[in-house]
């Protein structure tokens, strides 16, 4: 029927099994590139192979990010060599030893991952606020990790994120701030935005300014008030039609605008943002409804407003808040 019948299945079998020689691997690549339909068929066979086992499946890393990492490792090399050549000419062979040492380190078989000094930040359940070397502010939500190279402020500012974080980036037009997350990049000049990575999607909510989200050659602009979504399985970038609820960013910005929602929902968000625990001594109060907005107010102020609005008693004891009383107007 179609080209599907003439697929080089035996070659692909060897390839996926890890049995392909370099020549065979090149043949597979050439075949994939030869025709658009080949790529589609290749993807189907690859899906069969990947889905048959629950082990790690193939995912192509973002090429631009990988190239940046490579450049970061290449950068010091030419300098070292130039110096060596000049000094060698001046002082003769005494430096041969030094060259040998350099070569040894460069050709060492396991000269791979950790040549670049990385700073890592990781959160468990608590939220973490941090200032980066370029004075940008980052708030890591629970179960999030962030990495950047030491001296990252010297050229482009690259950070690697997994999980959810809020960024308030200082404006430095000659040094773009780039977040690598999953297999996409989010690039900004100076702005504040939130990135949330889940199993199915990466969402970027922009509060001020604009950012660009890109994967390979495709990219989209996300402006203030908009939410850009990357669908991980379909590998597609797009804008969310509706504006996002900025309360979702409350954990970082401490800016809330509650519109007729239950006290339980409100306190859940406050718990995250302020690292407190709210205990309802009267469970019925969880369903009290209220509307109010708070802009980075102290926790005592917020609970004072709540107690006045709903006619409840809020008692704050270190990082625990007890809510009691008979009811809310009802």
């Amino acid at each position, binding site marked *: 029927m179609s080209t599907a019948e003439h697929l080089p*299945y035996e070659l692909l079998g060897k390839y996926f099994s890890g049995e392909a020689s370099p020549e065979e691997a090149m043949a597979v690549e050439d075949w994939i590139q030869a025709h658009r339909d080949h790529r589609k068929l290749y993807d189907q066979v690859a899906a069969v192979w990947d889905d048959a086992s629950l082990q*790690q499946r193939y995912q192509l890393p973002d090429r631009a990010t*990988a190239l940046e990492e490579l*450049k970061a490792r290449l950068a010091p090399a030419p300098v070292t060599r130039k110096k060596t050549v000049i000094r060698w000419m001046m002082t003769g062979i005494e430096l041969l030893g030094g060259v040998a040492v350099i070569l040894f380190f460069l050709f060492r078989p396991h000269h*791979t991952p950790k040549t670049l000094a990385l700073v890592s930040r990781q959160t468990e359940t608590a939220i973490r606020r941090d200032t980066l070397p370029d004075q940008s502010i980052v708030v890591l939500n629970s179960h999030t990790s962030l990495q950047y190279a030491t001296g990252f402020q010297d050229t482009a500012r690259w950070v690697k994120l997994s999980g959810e974080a809020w960024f308030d980036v200082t404006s430095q037009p000659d040094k773009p701030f780039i977040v690598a997350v999953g297999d996409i990049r989010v690039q900004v000049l100076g702005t504040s935005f939130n990135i949330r990575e889940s199993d199915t999607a990466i969402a970027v909510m922009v509060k001020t300014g604009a950012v660009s989200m890109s994967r390979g050659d495709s990219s989209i602009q996300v402006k203030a008030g908009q939410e850009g979504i990357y669908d991980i399985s379909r590998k597609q970038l797009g804008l969310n039609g509706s504006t996002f609820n900025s309360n979702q960013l409350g954990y970082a910005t401490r800016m809330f605008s509650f519109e007729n929602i239950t006290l339980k929902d409100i306190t859940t968000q406050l718990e995250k943002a302020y690292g407190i625990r709210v205990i309802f001594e009267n469970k019925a109060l969880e369903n009290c409804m209220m509307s109010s907005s708070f802009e980075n107010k102290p926790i005592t102020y917020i609970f004072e407003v709540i107690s006045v609005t709903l006619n409840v008693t809020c008692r704050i004891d270190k990082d625990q808040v007890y809510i009691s009383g008979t009811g809310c107007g009802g």
Partner: protein
Amino acid sequence: MDIHFSRAKDQERLVEASFQTYFEGLHRYAFTILKDNDEAKDAVQAVFLKLWEKRNELDAQQSVKSYLYTAVYHYCLNVKRHEKVKDNYLAQRTPVYEHRNELVSKETHRRIMEHIDSLSPQCRLIFSKSRFEGRKYAEIAADLGLSVKTVEVQMGKALKILRAKLFDIMMMILFAWLFL
């Protein structure tokens, strides 16, 4: 498509251009051997570092492409050898399962397993040994008293049948759903 070394001064650009052109294919190839996305990325990076170092030694007409594929191949085999040594010390390594994968494809996985069960016994046995036990073709051939060529043919057959069952059926359902 291939890029050749010319004695140009802008070697940096050559390395970058090669990276842009071959990164995807090399990474995919490294993954087939190492079965780990990060390790595969490290392998490709290491090979490009080496390419950078050797950029002046390479023959003017030598193909960068075949240099890179060969280097990735040898690098990956080296990593595997190291892992084997490590595994001998660390008695048993529990395989790393990605949660994401488990969640997303449980249903698909179940469906594929059904199709694998319906393969002919020899075909199923060979496919399982390669895919699930990670055995080398040569080992499978020796175990079953077959030629390596037979293993290749059976693996190809398994992939062909499984692809057709999963995708042509899906297309038919989609077609029916769209036009009926």
